[in-house]
């Protein structure tokens, strides 16, 4: 794909939940193989923006184009979702299926792969995320970090062009954060387009091409990780960083 063509375009997106104005005119462009890390206080619209890209939330106005397909309320949503993998804060693994079944279900149902082929891909992905021995375990038998890695493998199994991470490490024990971040770093190195909502500074510095600071439903500041952390321009950014960096 042409490097100059953005793979995700948000144009002046607005979203309201009742009286709450969650997104106030967000515009963003993400290019293929870019890693964008989004930070911001809670309620600033980071997750909402991510969920709008996947159309888990509909927008009130504005335009979202993903991989050349404009998201509207028509039937192209599933087509877009297949190209966009999403990883959730609370993993959202399917508790009635084993790790392998979790990864192969959507391949069979959506990608129409044969059960054998789907299983093979699932086992390969489990090797990739470092837990091949947990293939036949149920989510309740896995640790948080292992569950999140299965969730990443599940999203990868659809061979998405874009991966969205919604605070993937904030529900994890401190010890387990690294194993998930390592998997994400590998992905970034392989050239996956990623939009990550996360406050993990180490990951941002190692992998992010750009960082975005959001507040009150709008993008306040956009910079490289070094510039944002060391030399924030905006008052609000400085205040926020002074609170999370200690």
């Amino acid at each position, binding site marked *: 794909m042409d490097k100059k063509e953005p793979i995700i375009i948000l144009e002046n997106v607005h979203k309201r939940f009742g009286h709450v104005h969650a997104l106030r005119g967000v515009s963003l462009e993400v290019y293929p193989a870019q890693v964008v890390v989004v930070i911001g206080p809670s309620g600033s619209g980071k997750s909402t923006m991510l969920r709008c890209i996947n159309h888990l939330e509909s927008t009130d106005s504005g335009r979202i184009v993903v991989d050349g397909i404009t998201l509207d309320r028509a039937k192209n949503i599933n087509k877009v979702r*297949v190209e966009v993998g999403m990883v959730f804060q609370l993993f959202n693994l*399917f*508790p*009635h299926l084993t790790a392998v079944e979790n990864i192969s279900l*959507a391949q069979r149902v959506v990608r129409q792969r044969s059960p054998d082929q789907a299983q093979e891909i699932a086992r390969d992905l489990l090797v990739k995320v470092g837990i091949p021995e947990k293939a036949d375990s149920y989510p309740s038998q896995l640790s948080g970090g292992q569950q999140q890695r299965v969730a990443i493998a*599940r999203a990868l199994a*659809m061979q998405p062009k874009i991966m969205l991470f919604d605070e993937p490490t904030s529900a994890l024990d401190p010890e387990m954060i690294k194993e998930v971040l390592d998997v994400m770093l590998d992905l970034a190195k392989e050239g996956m387009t990623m939009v990550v909502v996360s406050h993990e500074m180490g990951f941002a510095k190692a992998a992010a091409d750009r960082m975005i600071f959001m507040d009150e439903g709008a993008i306040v500041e956009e910079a490289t990780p070094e510039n944002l952390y060391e030399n924030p321009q905006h008052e609000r950014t400085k205040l926020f960083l002074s609170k999370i960096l200690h």
Partner: protein
Amino acid sequence: MASDKIPGSQPASLAVDARARRRGRTGLALPWESIPWWGVIILLVGVIVGYSVFTSTRYIDALYFIFDLPWNKQALGRLDEVGESGAWSLTTKPALEPGNYTLYAEFQDETGATVGRSDVYRVKVAQTASEVETEPLPAPGPTPIQLQTSTPTIAGTAPVSATVVLYEDFSNNPWRVVKRIWSANGVLLTIRVTLVAFAGALILGLLFGLMRVSNRSPDLTLNLGRRLLIGLGLIALLWVTVPAWRGLGSLVVVAAIVEAIMFLLPAMPYTFSTLYVEMVRGVPMLVIILYMGFAVTPSLRNASQDWATGAIDLRGLPAAIIGLSFGYGAYLAEVYRAGIQSIPKGQMEAARSLGMSYFQAMRYVILPQAIRVVLPPLGNDFIAMLKDSSLISVVALPEVLQQGRLWISRNFRAFEGFNSVAMLYLVMTLLLSLLVRFIERKTALPGR
């Protein structure tokens, strides 16, 4: 310690307590977990058999009647009060189809007890046999007697003033036995009605449950033009098929109603299912069954009498089953809804984010989990329906209660009759709750 004060052997209850403590339980507790489920069944059957055998032969008689026994033979003729000579002669009625039969007569005294039997005749009715009167059959030999009549006569001698019953015995024909059991009254009818009606209610409940969790205020403008266009097509279809509505006034009304429905179509599933649940849940089961049995199905039959396809006659058993399914569908819809809504929202989002459609996500992700949640309440409703199936006796179906009452009206033994009925329901419901527990254990997820 208690054992210090009481000399001699250790009390037996201490062993039970020790076992309970090993299982991490304290206090007075029976070790129910150590009794296997089939042990419980044997125990129950033992109690029933013991109860009926050791109290009174009346119970055996009542249970025999409520089970609609025997299942291996069929009465083909009956002769009360054999005369002084003891000679009797009986002709089969109805006529026999071509094939092999085993015929014999049983002699009973005035209490109904068997006091003797005739010879056993094995006969073969020819394909060409007709209903002609013939001489009584000759003495039975080793080979079947070839018959050209489909109404053979058997004669012999019996004790004076006995009752003679002519039976066709089909124990050696498993298919006939299965057919007889399938059509048996009493317990088997109750089981049959409950199984079929519950299967219907499960499907109906799932359908309406899914409608109940659908969007209650969807975007009515989505595909509005296409919907209204389909509405126009429907109006045209009505114009062609129903001449009575061709007047301008009625056409306007019909068009308005059709287009209003098409406009509100996306909101229909929620609205319609809510209407169904609230209305059906608020009407007593007895009323629903009477309604189905005496109002809906008879008028359906009347209305369909002139149709080319023939009258649709759903009176009797189908009406009862439809009534039960219809009534319980409303309860089960709510059970399913609760189950589906108990699954965290993230599950649907995760499935959708993988590209699954709403229905794929329901089918593969939400429902498999929801079913596990709703199993206990479903079992509850299954048992409730088994008990409510006694209501269908009001449309004169010979299920357990009806058979019991029939037996009582013949024997004037209300206690024995109703005790038997109550016991049978109890045994059936207890077995059912065992089954439900078994299914729950089998479908449980590890670590849950």
